[in-house]
């Protein structure tokens, strides 16, 4: 009896391992073994896993329908995942050789996927002439280790200064202007916060907002070798400055996170906030007379310089080379100026195809123009995996300065130590 149980267990385990370590990729749904001499005539299936907003998914389906009508031999199959799900599923599927040909998502996936060998440089499929039709700032966002790893289709995600035109006449250009405008608009009822109007609010504990201040003082979170650079004068100045927003200027609310500024601005109870491009449409829909401007120039510094990042397509290492022609055709179609403009409008972010900038639907769209104006005061967010260690190191120290009176110089030094440790962990050192 024991022998039979043992045999069953061994057989089962072996069969699972055999199934999971199969090196043969799944047979393509259609036409995987396309004869080289007639690539366009054979049916080709392009699988795409994406992390798109609902509006962008609708646009994608419309454009894909047009595409498949024009190229009946090519089928595009779209599968939606949320951000983290997309990362883990693509990793897992690639490990088993079952991943899709294309992955669509934010550019910070590049650092993760290219080091793991899951994606290939886009130049393996696309000509330089195609890439040159894209905005250089957007292209740079997917560039690392001497190669381009994404085909970006929207650019933005940048934080900007948002103001309620009913409470502030015009966008402040300097920090002094901002303080004056905020103080004028501010009216606090200590007994009833519901009757209060706030001058200037922002997510003070989140490093993605904080880097806008740090960059303005000349800081940069990483050097050219992707090593953290957080212990410097710019960091000390930025930490002290952010602390003083409440401590000296009396602006803001202790413990401001994302929700408080967002909610109060929607209710018309905040004159100015800092928030990203993803939120702008919601404020307009809430009936706010929305003004959008770059972050003001800080005393002794430059304009607040937030990060921008792109979303775009990555090409799997496991892509069947026989599908390269079909994938080139896909990109030619989806990144035509007209189609690119459709995606940009659906996402309320800037198009990446340079020719799309001049189309009337972009020129006449208020949010698109705001995006163009503010994106010039941004810098691409580093896309390398080490960035996670930097974010992780910054937040506790930023909070310690804001809420536990930690000395900014000490916090900057501690940040650097933590970030270096984190980077070493990521690199497996």
């Amino acid at each position: 009896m024991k022998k039979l149980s043992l045999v069953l267990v061994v057989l089962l385990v072996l069969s699972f391992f055999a199934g999971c370590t199969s090196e043969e990729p799944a047979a393509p749904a259609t036409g995987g073994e396309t004869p080289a001499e007639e690539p366009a005539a054979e049916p080709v299936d392009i699988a795409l896993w994406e992390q798109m907003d609902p509006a962008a998914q609708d646009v994608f389906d419309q454009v894909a329908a047009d595409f498949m009508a024009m190229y009946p031999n090519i089928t595009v199959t779209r599968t939606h995942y949320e951000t983290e799900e997309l990362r883990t599923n693509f990793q897992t599927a690639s490990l088993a050789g079952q991943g899709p040909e294309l992955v669509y998502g934010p550019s910070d996936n590049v650092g993760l996927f290219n080091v793991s060998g899951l994606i290939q440089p886009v130049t393996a499929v696309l000509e330089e002439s195609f890439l040159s039709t894209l905005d250089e700032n957007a292209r740079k966002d997917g560039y690392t280790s001497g190669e381009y790893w994404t085909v970006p289709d929207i650019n933005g995600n940048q934080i900007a200064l948002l103001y309620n035109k009913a409470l502030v006449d015009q966008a402040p250009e300097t920090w002094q202007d901002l303080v004056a405008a905020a103080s004028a608009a501010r009216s606090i009822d200590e007994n009833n916060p519901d009757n209060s109007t706030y001058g200037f609010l922002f997510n003070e504990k989140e490093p993605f907002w904080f880097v806008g201040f740090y960059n303005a003082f000349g800081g940069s979170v990483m050097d050219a070798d992707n090593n953290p650079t957080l212990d410097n004068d710019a960091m000390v100045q930025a930490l002290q400055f952010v602390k003083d927003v409440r401590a000296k200027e009396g602006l803001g609310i202790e413990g401001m996170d994302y929700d408080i500024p967002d909610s109060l601005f929607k209710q018309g109870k905040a004159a100015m906030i800092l928030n990203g491009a993803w939120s702008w449409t919601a404020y307009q829909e809430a009936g706010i007379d929305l003004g959008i401007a770059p972050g003001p120039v800080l005393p002794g510094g430059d304009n607040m310089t937030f990060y921008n990042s792109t979303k775009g397509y990555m090409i799997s290492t496991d892509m069947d080379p026989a599908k390269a022609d079909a994938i080139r055709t896909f990109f030619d179609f989806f990144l035509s100026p007209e189609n690119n403009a459709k995606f940009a409008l659906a996402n309320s972010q800037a198009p990446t195809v340079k020719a799309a900038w001049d189309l009337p639907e972009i020129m006449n769209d208020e949010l698109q123009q705001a995006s163009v104006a503010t994106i010039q005061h941004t810098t691409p967010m580093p896309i390398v995996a080490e960035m996670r260690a930097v974010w992780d190191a910054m937040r506790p120290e930023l909070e310690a300065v804001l809420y536990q009176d930690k000395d900014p110089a000490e916090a900057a030094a501690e940040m650097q130590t933590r970030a270096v440790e984190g980077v070493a962990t990521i690199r497996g050192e």
Partner: protein
Amino acid sequence: MSENQQAVFSPNPKKRQKNLAVSRWTPYWYILPAFVVMAIMVFYPLGYGFYLSLTDMSLATFKNPNFIGFGNYLKLLQEATFIRTLLRTIVWTAVNVFFHVSIGLFLAVLLNRKLPGKGLLRVLLIIPWAVPQYIVALTWRGMLNNQFGAINIFLQKIGFSALPWLTDPTWTFIGAILTNIWLGFPFMMMISLGGLQSIDKEFYEAAEIDGASSLQQFRNITMPLLKPVLAPAIVLGTVWTFNMLNVILIIAGGFGNEKTQILVTEVYRLAFNFYRYGYAAAYSVVIFLILLVFGMTFMRRTQGIEEVR
């Protein structure tokens, strides 16, 4: 007896084995489907997790991880962060489970008595369990807000000063404990109530005749008879609380401060922020072993799976 039945029950073993449907292998055929499911859902992931913990799988070695034996375990045990986080996790689990059981049992005893509006009360008390954890945690995060949160507003109205729930890591951790207590007591209440309702009333009547006080009845009748129900529930509650990721991450707003983290959030951070899959797997195996040892010891000590004598 039919010919077929004769073959099955025949004293001749050769005849008996002709029919596979009823033979000494029959029980194993019955459990085979369950075994296959268990193998896919439990044994394989466990085995693969253990295998990963013996490798250096990370971003750079994602496709070709190297076998490093127990290197990850040695590193982990030498880390001061691991010990600190383990102690914090024990505090987190002990405090939570203590209040889950105390509040749950107290409410179950109340609901087991004659009480006006008992049905409505029971529904209201189950609500924390019925609402998705994510929503509960977000609601509590709003209530813990320093300035606009209901808890600080209430504290100020009754003359206390506002507490820095979301700006001081220690208070954030306490806030997470409060949230998880609120989430967890209904389960213990329902389990206890089920157990209480199965206790024969005659035990209490006999005890009353013997002059036993309420406390004596609770200690000598209720608790021993609840043990077979409560002991496995406590083990389950401990495992769930030990591995509670959502509440910590939502209340603390991510992986911000080490003082708010427990072992399972550290595993998540190592795997999905730092991409140290092998190392994170070693953490997971250690968590599994801790819970396995606890579960077995607790059940043996409390004799929770033995029949009540």
